[in-house]
C-alpha cells in the first residue's frame, strides 16, 4: 500500500435536502498531484472545503496526514496550504503585509524569495486590489506554500491567467512535487489536468464517475481516434466518404473529421479516396482521444464526439 496522505471515505455532504457530495472515497499518495475534475456543481469545491476544515461532512470521514480537518483544525492549518477560488485577501492589504501576516500566523519567517520567484518582487508595496488577476493568483499561491506545507490544495489556480503565467505556475507545482509536496488540484481545465495530474477523479453530481491516471481514463473511453483531413479541392467535404471503421463523421471549417475505431485501416482508404478523386492532401492530423474528450463522454454523453 502506498503512503496515503489524504484519505476520503464514504464522504457525504448535504445542504438541506440537496446532496452536494454523495458517498465518495479516494486516497491521495505522498508527492502526487491529484486532479479533481467535474462540471460546475459536481462537488469539487465542497470536497476541497471539507478537506480544508471549512465544512462539516454530513457523514463519512476525511483525513489529512491522520488529522481530521473538522475535529483538529489547529493541527490542520500548518499541514495544508490552500489557494482558494476567491481572492481570500483584503483589497487594501499589500503584498508584503500579506506575506508577513500569513507567515506570522504559521509561525515561520516571511518568504520574500518566494515573492521574487513568482514575479512579485517589484509589487511588495502594491495593494492586493491593484494587482492584475495573474499577480493576485501568484500571490495567493505564494501565501499557500510559504510555510512549506506537506499538502497543498489548489482550487482553479490558473483560471483567468495568460499562457506565460500558467506555464510558470505549472513549473512551481512541479518543483513542489519534486520536493515531495502532495497537491490536490481542482480544475475545469482538462489540458492542465492531463499535463499536471498523476491521477484524476471525475466528479459528477456528487459521485466519482471515473478515477485513474489520465492515460487510463482516456483508454477506458470509446477509444475512437480523431482523424482531421484538409485537401486541395475539398472533395471530402462535398461527399461524406464511406470509410471503414469510422463511427462518426463531421465537417468543421475546411476539415473533414472522422472518429475511427482503427486509424490504421481508415487513413489508407482516405488516401485512396483522394487519389481517385484527383485531390491532394493539404493537412492530416491523427489524434488520440484527450482527457477532455473522455470528460465530455462521461459528463455529457449526448454531446460527446464519439457518439
Amino acid at each position, binding site marked *: 500500500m502506498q503512503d496515503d496522505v489524504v484519505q476520503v471515505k464514504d464522504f457525504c455532504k448535504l445542504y438541506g435536502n440537496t446532496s452536494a457530495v454523495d458517498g465518495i472515497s479516494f486516497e491521495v499518495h505522498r508527492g502526487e498531484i491529484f486532479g479533481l475534475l467535474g462540471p460546475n456543481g459536481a462537488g469539487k469545491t465542497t470536497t476541497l472545503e471539507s478537506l480544508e476544515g*471549512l465544512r462539516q461532512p454530513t457523514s463519512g470521514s476525511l483525513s489529512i496526514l491522520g488529522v481530521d480537518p473538522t475535529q483538529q483544525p489547529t493541527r490542520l492549518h500548518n499541514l495544508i496550504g490552500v489557494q*482558494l477560488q*476567491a481572492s481570500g485577501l*483584503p483589497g487594501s*492589504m499589500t503584498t508584503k503585509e500579506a506575506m508577513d501576516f500569513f507567515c506570522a500566523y504559521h509561525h515561520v519567517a516571511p518568504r520574500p524569495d518566494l515573492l521574487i520567484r513568482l514575479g512579485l518582487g517589484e509589487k511588495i508595496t502594491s495593494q492586493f486590489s491593484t494587482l492584475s488577476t495573474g499577480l493576485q493568483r501568484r500571490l495567493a499561491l505564494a501565501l499557500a506554500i510559504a510555510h512549506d506545507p506537506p499538502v497543498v490544495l489548489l482550487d482553479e489556480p490558473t483560471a483567468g491567467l495568460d499562457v506565460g503565467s500558467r506555464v510558470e505556475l505549472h513549473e512551481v507545482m512541479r518543483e513542489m512535487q519534486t520536493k515531495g509536496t502532495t497537491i490536490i488540484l481542482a480544475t475545469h481545465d482538462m489540458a492542465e489536468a492531463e499535463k499536471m495530474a498523476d491521477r484524476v477523479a471525475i466528479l459528477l453530481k456528487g459521485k466519482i464517475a471515473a478515477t485513474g491516471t489520465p492515460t487510463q481514463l482516456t483508454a477506458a473511453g470509446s477509444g475512437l481516434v480523431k482523424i482531421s483531413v484538409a485537401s486541395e479541392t475539398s472533395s471530402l467535404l462535398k461527399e461524406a466518404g464511406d470509410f471503414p471503421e469510422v463511427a462518426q463523421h463531421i465537417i468543421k471549417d475546411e476539415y473533414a473529421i472522422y472518429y475511427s475505431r482503427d486509424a490504421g485501416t481508415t487513413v489508407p482508404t482516405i488516401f485512396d479516396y483522394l487519389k481517385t478523386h484527383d485531390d491532394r492532401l493539404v493537412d492530416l492530423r491523427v489524434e488520440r482521444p484527450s482527457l477532455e474528450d473522455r470528460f465530455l463522454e462521461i459528463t455529457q454523453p449526448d454531446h460527446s464526439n464519439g457518439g
Partner: protein
Amino acid sequence: MTAFFHHFMYDFRTGLRDKSLLLLNYLFPLGFYILMGLLMTGLNPTFSPTMIPAMILVAMMACTLLGLPNPVVESREAGIFRSFKINGVPAPSIVTIPVLSSYVHITLVSIIITFTAGPFFNAGIPVNWGYFVLIFLLTTFTFASLGMLIGVVSPNSRSIILFSQLIFLPSMMLGGLMIPSNMLPPALYRISLLLPTVHAMNAWRGLAFELAPVFDPRWSLLILLSSGVIAYALAIYLFNWDSKNRRRGRSPFLALITWVPYILGAIFLAG
C-alpha cells in the same frame, strides 16, 4: 504575539488607507466638531461645558457604529475570513483587533478635540482627568464591541446601515450630546436611557466634569461596562467565518441581549 501585532498594524493602517474609513474615523468627526464649535457654542449655552465628551462620542459612534461593521461583512462575503480560518487566524483575534484599532483612531481624534476645544471654543475642561480617561476607555470598549456585534450579525451592508442608524440617529438627537437628557419630555427621557451616549454623558458630567449628573453616574458605568462585555462576548460567540455556514443554535437575535442593561436602566432609573 508577532501574528497579533502584524494583524493589528494591518487593521490600523486600513483605517487610514481606506478612504471611507478615513472619512468616518477622522474627517467626519473633526469636521463635525469644528462646525459644532463654531455654531452650537453660540446658540446653546448648555453645550459648551460638555462639548468635549459630546464631540468625543460623535467620533466614537462614527468610527465604531458607521465604520467598523462594514469591513466585517465585506470580509465575510469575500471569503477573507475563510482564508483566515484556513491559515490559523483565531476568531477572537478577528473580533478583538478592530476593537483595539478603533481605540487608537478614537484616541487620536479625542486628543485633538480635548486639547483644542478649550482654547478655540471655550469648552469646559475635565476636572477629574482620571475619571475622564476611565470613562473614555469604557465607552470606547462598549461602542467598539457594539460595532463589531453589528458587523457579526448583519447579513449584508444594507442591514448594517439599518442597525447602525437605529443607534446613531437617536443618539445624536436624544443622547444628551446637544442638550442634557433630563431636559427631554419624560417619555423621550425614558427612551433616551436605552442609548449608550446618555450613560456616557451622565458619567462624564458627574465624575469627570463635576457637573450635576442626571442620576447616579456609577449606574451609568455599570450599564456601559455590562453591555460592552455582553456585546463583546456575543460578537465572539456569534462570529461566522462565512455567510453560507451559520452555526446552528446561534441566532443573531441573541444580540438583543446587549440591550438588557439599558432596559433595566430605563425601568429603574427613569423615576
